[in-house]
C-alpha cells in the first residue's frame, strides 16, 4: 500500500509540475494586469507544436524546448501588444472577453493551418523505467519533466527576486502608479511578464507532448483550464501559490483516477475550483488583500 501511494505521488507530481508551469503564466499575468488570460492554454498548445516541428526537424529535447520557449515568448508579447494593450483602462470584462476571443483565434488558426487531427509526437526521449525501491518506479520522461520544472522554477525565482526587471515586475504588480514614479517603464515590464509566462507555457507544452506523445490544436484547452484551477487554488497572483496549486492538483487528479474513478479525473479539478471559490476564494496562499484605490 505504501509503495502504491508513493508511486501515485510520483505520477501526480510529474503531471502536477506541468500544470504548475502553465499556472505560473496565469498567475504572473493576473498579478500584473489583473487579467485571466484565457489564451494562455493555447500558447501552451503552440509551444507543443513548435516542439513537434523542432523534433521532426531532428532537434533534440534541449533545443526543442529553447525554440518553443522563444516562439511562445514572442507570441505572448504580440498578444499583449495587439489585443490587450489597446484596451488598457477598459472595463475588466471587456479584456476578459477579448482573451477568450484570442483563445478561439489561436485554436482555429491551428485547425486551419495544421488540420484538426492529432499528430504523433516524435520520441525524442527514450523511455526507460528505473526502479526506486520495491515496486516503485520512475521513468525517464518523468525525470525530465521534473528536472525541467525545477530548473525553470529556480531561474524564475532568480529573475523575479534578483534582477532589476524582476523587481520592476513586483513593483508594477503591487502598485502601477507608484512604479511609474520610480521611473519604471510599465509597458516594457508588462511585455516582459507576458514573455516569461508564455515561455514557461511553451516549455510545458513540449514536456507535456513528450509525456503524452500527441499534439493537436485543441490540446491546450483542458490543461489550460486545469492550470487556471491550480493558479486559483494557490491564490491567483501569487507565484509560489501556482507551484503548490499545480502539484496539489496533479496529485489529487492522479489519486482520484488511481482509486478507480478515472472518468472523474477531469471533474476533480473543477470540483476543487468550486470548493476553493466557496471556502477560500483568495486561495491557499492568499491573504485578504485590500482592494487598491
Amino acid at each position, binding site marked *: 500500500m505504501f509503495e502504491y501511494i508513493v508511486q501515485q505521488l510520483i505520477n501526480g507530481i510529474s503531471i502536477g509540475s506541468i500544470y504548475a508551469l502553465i499556472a505560473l503564466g496565469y498567475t504572473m499575468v493576473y498579478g500584473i494586469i489583473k487579467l485571466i488570460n484565457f489564451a494562455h492554454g493555447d500558447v501552451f498548445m503552440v509551444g507543443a507544436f513548435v516542439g513537434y516541428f523542432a523534433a521532426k526537424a531532428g532537434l533534440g529535447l534541449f533545443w526543442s524546448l529553447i525554440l518553443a520557449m522563444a516562439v511562445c515568448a514572442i507570441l505572448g508579447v504580440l498578444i499583449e501588444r495587439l489585443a490587450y494593450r489597446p484596451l488598457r483602462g477598459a472595463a475588466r470584462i471587456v479584456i476578459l472577453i477579448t482573451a477568450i476571443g484570442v483563445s478561439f483565434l489561436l485554436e482555429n488558426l491551428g485547425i486551419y493551418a495544421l488540420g484538426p487531427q492529432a499528430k504523433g509526437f516524435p520520441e525524442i526521449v527514450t523511455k526507460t523505467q528505473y526502479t526506486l525501491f520495491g515496486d516503485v518506479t520512475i521513468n525517464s520522461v518523468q525525470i525530465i519533466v521534473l528536472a525541467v520544472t525545477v530548473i525553470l522554477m529556480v531561474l524564475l525565482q532568480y529573475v523575479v527576486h534578483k534582477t532589476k526587471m524582476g*523587481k*520592476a515586475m513586483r*513593483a508594477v504588480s503591487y502598485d502601477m502608479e507608484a512604479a*511609474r*514614479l*520610480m*521611473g*519604471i*517603464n510599465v509597458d516594457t515590464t508588462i511585455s516582459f511578464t507576458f514573455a516569461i509566462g508564455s515561455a514557461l507555457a511553451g516549455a510545458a507544452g513540449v514536456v507535456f507532448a513528450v509525456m503524452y506523445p500527441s499534439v493537436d490544436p485543441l490540446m491546450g484547452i483542458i490543461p489550460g483550464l486545469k492550470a487556471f484551477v491550480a493558479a486559483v487554488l494557490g491564490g491567483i497572483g501569487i507565484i509560489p501559490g501556482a507551484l503548490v496549486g499545480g502539484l496539489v492538483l496533479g496529485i489529487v487528479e492522479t489519486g482520484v483516477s488511481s482509486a478507480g474513478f478515472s472518468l472523474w479525473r477531469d471533474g476533480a479539478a473543477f470540483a476543487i475550483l468550486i470548493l476553493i471559490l466557496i471556502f477560500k476564494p483568495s486561495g491557499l496562499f492568499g491573504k485578504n488583500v485590500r482592494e487598491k484605490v
Partner: protein
Amino acid sequence: MLAVDNINVFYGAIHALKGVSLDVKEGEIVTLIGANGAGKSTILKTLSGLLKPTSGSIQFLGDTIHGRPAQQIVKRGLCHCPEGRRVFANMSVEENLELGAYLRKDKEVKSDLEKVYVKFPRLKERQKQLSGTLSGGEQQMLAMGRALMARPKLLLLDEPSMGLAPLLVKEIFSIIKEINESGTTVLLVEQNANMALSIAHRAYVIETGKIVLAGDAKELADSDEIKKAYLGG
C-alpha cells in the same frame, strides 16, 4: 527651474485644474496649500507625468515635459513622493530604496544608500524588514528616502506629515529643510499650512482647481485671509 503655464487637467468630465500657472526656482522650498479636493495632488501628478494636461505647458530645466512618459521625467531629475507614501509593502526596506534608484546606472548608488541610512537611522535598523510592517512614520521616511535615491533636482512631496504624531511631524519638516539645504529644490503640498509656511520660501494657495493667492511664505503666514482659512485663527 520649473515653469507651469496655464494648465488644464480633467478627470473625465471633472475639470480638476483650471488654468494653473506656477513656478519654482532653483534652491527654493515652495509650498502649495489648499483644502481637501482643491487639486494639489492633481498638480503634482501632472508634473510627474501620471496625468496629461489637455492644454498649457510645463517646462523643467529648459525642456518641455508635459505629455512625456513618467520615466523620462524622473530621469531628468523631477521626483514625486506621492500622497499616502505608496511604499511597496511586499518588498523589504532596502528593495524599496533600490527601486528609487531604478533608472540610475552610476556607481554611487551604494554610497547614496548609506547616506539615506544616515539620514534615516530607523530605516537602517529595518533594512530587511518588509516595508508593509513599518509604522506610518517609518513608511514616510522610506518614501522620502526612496525618492532621494533618484538624486532628484526637484523633489515633489505630497502631504508628508499626513497622519503623523506632532513630534514626528517636526522631525519630518526638519528633514525636508535639511534636504533643501543640501541642494535639492522642494515643492511641498501640505494640509499643515502652519508648518509648511514656516519652512517654505514661497507659497501658492489653491482653491477648486485655481491658484487664488501667491507670495512670500512669511507674508502669507501673516495675512488675515490665510489665517482664517488655513491656519485655524
